[in-house]
């Protein structure tokens, strides 16, 4: 971090964003708490990642240990809402988050759940600098918060093993996403604290595609995440105007 502060243009971390999530970290696992939307989103994003992994690594999606032996990096793991299910499916998960407090919450919870997850208060570039490699690199609800998208994708892509893939879930930059994700989710429904998102930092699927291409990754799957206000559930759909998922493979 000291290194990063001396050369601010080289980092992908935005200090103001980090402190905002640290304040929320105790709330991560409260089932009806502030992170309820993320818990609700979980089945869709896990299914996205799992289905691609089962396809690429020839696993049976019906097996409870379908990800066994796969090394997974969860960037911006927060309290571990995504890391834990992936570990339960057998993956060797490394969860990183720049906010120390999040990592402490995540460690404590994994221990209570009887799961071995390697949580670290670290940044993606620190792991990339150490030469760490993964079968799956995940940036879920992260790229809309990073300071420098292209640098972030570059360092994340470095860590994907040949034959592995990167999965991103995020929010599109459209008028609809402005209305739903910021006005709707933050101001009207109060799902998220006001200021959680800054619309102009949102990334379009085309921009993600371009970044992937620059760093040698080929898009393999893309889908929308649609909220059903009646059931309160999220499901996968075709409309990528608001929330979407995108995955790209590093040639083997």
């Amino acid at each position, binding site marked *: 971090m000291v290194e990063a502060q001396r050369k601010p243009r080289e980092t992908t971390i935005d200090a103001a964003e980090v402190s905002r999530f640290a304040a929320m970290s105790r709330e991560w*696992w409260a*089932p*009806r708490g502030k992170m309820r939307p993320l*818990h*609700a989103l*979980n*089945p869709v994003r*896990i*299914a996205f990642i*799992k289905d691609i992994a089962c396809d690429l690594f020839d696993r049976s*999606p*019906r*097996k*409870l*240990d*379908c*990800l066994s032996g796969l090394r997974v990096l969860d960037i911006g793991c927060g309290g571990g809402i995504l890391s*834990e*299910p*992936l*570990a*339960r*499916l057998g993956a060797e998960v490394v969860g990183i988050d720049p906010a120390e407090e999040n990592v402490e919450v995540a460690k404590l919870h994994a221990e*209570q*759940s*009887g799961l071995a997850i390697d949580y670290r208060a670290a940044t993606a570039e620190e792991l990339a600098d150490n030469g760490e490699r993964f079968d799956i690199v995940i940036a879920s609800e992260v790229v809309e918060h990073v300071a420098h998208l292209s640098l972030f994708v570059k360092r994340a892509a470095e860590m994907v093993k040949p034959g592995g893939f990167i999965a991103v879930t995020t929010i599109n930059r459209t008028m609809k996403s402005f209305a739903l994700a910021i006005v709707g989710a933050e101001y009207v429904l109060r799902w998220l604290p006001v200021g959680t998102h800054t619309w102009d930092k949102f990334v379009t699927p085309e921009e993600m595609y371009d970044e992937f291409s620059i760093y040698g990754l080929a898009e393999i799957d893309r889908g929308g995440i649609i909220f059903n206000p009646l*059931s*309160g*559930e999220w499901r996968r759909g075709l409309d990528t105007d608001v929330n979407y998922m995108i995955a790209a493979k590093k040639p083997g």
Partner: protein
Amino acid sequence: MNKQMPDKPLDVAIAGAGIAGAALGVALKQTLGGGFSVAMFDPALAREPARDDRVVAIAGGARRLFEALGVWERLVEAQPIRAMEITDSKLSDAVRQTFLEFSEDEEGEPFAHMVENRALIVALREAAEEAGIELVASGIDSYLADESFATFSSGEKQYRARLLAAADGAQSRLRSLAKIQTIARGYDQSGIVATIGHAREHDSKAVQHFLPSGSFAILPLTGKRSSIVWTEASAEAKRIVALPPAEFLAELELRFGLQLGELEVLSPARAYPLQISIARSFIAERLALVGDAAHVIHPLAGQGLNMGLRDVAALAECIADNARLGLDPGAPELLSRYQRWRRADTVAMGLATDGLNRLFSNDSTPLKYLRDLGLGIVDRAPALKKFFAREAAGLTGDVPKLLRGEFI
């Protein structure tokens, strides 16, 4: 009590080894396999299933569930119901006019099968043992839930489970421990149950007479036998079951009719009080109510067990979907999904059968015209009839996969 340290937490603990509990256990274990731990707790597991004259009608959806679970093939004595006749008359009417007749649909699938309670429980226990469910012959009398586990003791041992499924019956102990209230109504009616032998074949036909005091159902069993479910005001039911055999037979013949020839009472008649009761919530932290623990409905439409199996199929599907995504089988989101899926459906069915009972258990002449008009309309409208038959078979609405005979 010697409290040991809890073992590795169970994924799902089931309180109650009755039909709903055992079916849930078998569904989970067969679907999710060795990596998913299921234990079933019931003091009744210490002995052979008790003698029980009650029979259950297994409708289409429930049969498919038992087929998918490999339980159906173990039931040798299942009697199909291939036709149903519904009449509405006074006891003194010489001829009971038939208002509604159903016969099996084009595919030749029976409406339901009659199976003896005990035979079903024996088959489910065998399947549970083979599936590798841990069977514990003691009950669960208390539990504590926190954000991660339900902790409880059974016998001398302490356990932890991600989810506790309460299939511990109409008087569910876990339901009261979770402080879940029920909306209950007694009918001051009882159902008299007995097995009747008759001289002629029943031709796989079920008959339901709507009499002023309540319904009188004749349900075919294997051989020249039928089971009756005879509804009367509770005091009258008490009087009837205590009658000397000859007088009981006379009362029976008055209702049963003589179309199947001479009657013989094969098992002593017993009266079971009728009630409707629906839990205000089907869930609590780390707890899901299943079957009679969640709802007891008027047995008029024969829907009690089928409703319970809908709970089983829905909960098993919710759990399997979650487990395959590495998600906690007792997560609040899963429990909410189960509750959304099952509770509205149950309330609707409860209200419908309650309404039917009130509509039919009545001697008022205007009401009789009204309901006969209703039955007449249904009888002449094939689409409506088909709808009612499918509803009774549990094949309408958002049907859980197991009830469609699909694997989850």
